[in-house]
């Protein structure tokens, strides 16, 4: 039974926040009164502040992507829990620019409501505020799910592209349209061979038989609709690639950006092997791979699994993707 390295279940998040702030003091600052991080370096041309946030346990999302070319503020909640509206409201007030503030929100009920309350409070103070909702998870693409698809890996792509666009001085409506379009052209799927360890109890959130994969997991340890036999990697990646490509809008061209993302306790060795399999699967299907990113960016504590995000690119998106960014965790 693996245990987390920490003083107590309660200390895990606060100690990590303090450590992160100190480790990256040249780039970010933590506001202890209201519980948010903000960048120390703002692109002078920015007219809109970019704010995101969500539960802790998904590191390096979101705080790792604070800085020039990406986010202005990030609001960490408790583990797998939405940040409080006060954190979001105060962070938004602090980083709002001439054209207001944009919230980048993963589609979960708690996040939607808390960002929504913050937005009402901002409107009440006369601060312009809009939202881009990330809902890229193909596993939850069903008419039976009233709340819609979950937000996962595409969040990173949206944060990168919108950050670069914001640095060019674009306005709020323009950024909302761009972020909405990027989300529309991105889909993700995640698989896991083992659940994450629940911090409170130190036990796995769920157990799987040997040689069975949970197919379509979320990033909070939610079980998937179904399991699949632990097929050879090539076959697994082909299945995922086919499903993702089929779900991209028909208008999308045959060129993609791939995000190969570890969910917490998968090795770099495996991730690069997955990256290799993805490239082969795309090539076999005549789909061009314009860009890729491989590593752990949107995790689910120590879940043993990975997610694959495909984003239908265009010249504009690639230009913004390639723009420089300086944050604690952006690797390019």
């Amino acid at each position: 039974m693996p245990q987390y390295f920490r003083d107590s279940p309660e200390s895990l998040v606060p100690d990590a926040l303090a450590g992160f702030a100190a480790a990256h003091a040249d780039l970010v600052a933590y506001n202890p009164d209201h519980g948010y991080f903000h960048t120390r370096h703002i692109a002078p041309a920015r007219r809109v502040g970019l704010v995101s946030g969500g539960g802790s346990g998904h590191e390096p999302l979101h705080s790792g992507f604070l800085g020039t070319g990406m986010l202005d503020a990030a609001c960490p909640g408790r583990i797998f829990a939405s940040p409080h509206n006060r954190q979001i409201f105060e962070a938004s007030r602090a980083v709002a620019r001439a054209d207001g503030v944009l919230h980048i929100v993963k589609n979960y009920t708690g996040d939607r409501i808390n960002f929504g309350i913050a937005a009402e409070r901002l409107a009440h103070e006369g601060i312009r505020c809009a939202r881009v909702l990330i809902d890229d998870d193909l596993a939850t693409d069903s008419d039976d799910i009233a709340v819609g698809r979950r937000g996962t890996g595409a969040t990173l792509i949206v944060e990168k592209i919108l950050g670069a666009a914001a640095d060019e001085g674009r306005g709020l409506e323009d950024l909302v349209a761009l972020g909405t379009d990027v989300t529309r052209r991105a889909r993700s799927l995640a698989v896991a061979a083992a659940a994450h360890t629940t911090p409170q109890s130190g036990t796995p959130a769920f157990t799987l038989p040997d040689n069975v994969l949970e197919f379509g997991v979320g990033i909070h340890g939610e079980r998937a609709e179904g399991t699949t036999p632990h097929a050879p990697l090539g076959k697994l990646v082909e299945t995922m690639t086919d499903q993702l490509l089929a779900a991209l809008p028909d208008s999308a061209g045959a060129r993609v950006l791939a995000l190969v993302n570890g969910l917490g306790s998968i090795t770099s060795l495996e991730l690069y092997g997955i990256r290799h399999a993805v490239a082969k699967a795309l090539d076999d299907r005549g789909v061009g791979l314009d860009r890729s990113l491989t590593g752990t960016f949107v995790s689910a504590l120590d879940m043993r699994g990975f997610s694959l995000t495909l984003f239908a690119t265009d010249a504009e998106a690639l230009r913004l993707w390639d723009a420089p960014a300086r944050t604690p965790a952006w690797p390019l």
Partner: protein
Amino acid sequence: MPDQPGPKGLTHTAVMDWMTRFAATVRSVEPELTALDQKAGDGDFGANLVTGLDGVRRALDALAAGAGNGERDRRGPDAPLDAAARVFLDDVGGTSGPLFGLLFQELADALGMAADPPGTAALALGTAAGAAAIQRVGEAEVGDKTMVDALVPAARALASCEPTADPAHALHVAAVAAHRGARSTTDLRARRGRASYTGDHSRGVPDPGALAVALLFASAHAELTSLSRLPVS
């Protein structure tokens, strides 16, 4: 010739006493609210509401002692609602508490902008704006078994009153409508909020958030019709 008790308006004192009365009422029924929320929900609603109202009590004491929010007249009828809004938005966990904060914020704005003392028109405006804000954020409709099931009928009832009607009468109509709306949630299956995850377990249990909305309007009505205090001359 002593003053005769007359109809009360929504003065600063009356609104202070309304909030105090609401807090006392919620405290007295908190075990019942918690029991309901444990049957269908996550069980924290009653405690969150009481925590918020304790904070409101402290904020009202501070207001009476001369503290204030620099932007507002701390003796205005809106000041107690503004204090309640801040506490519920900033310091209450979960989602229901901060949503109540939005209602208080809209009521404070409407009473603050009204002629002195504010009456039925301001109550109708604030309640409708509060209901709209809560529906924008929570995306709940009437029938989803949430606080909206009591708040929307209350807003409609107030809107149906003459703007110049005695606010005590308007609040009676609103309290009855909110109470009926809250009772109507008993047989519903929750479609929003934590209770929506409990499926049919939520049937047979009224929604605690809707009941709390009904108590808010009942408290206001009771405050304006109580003749326990002589009008302040």
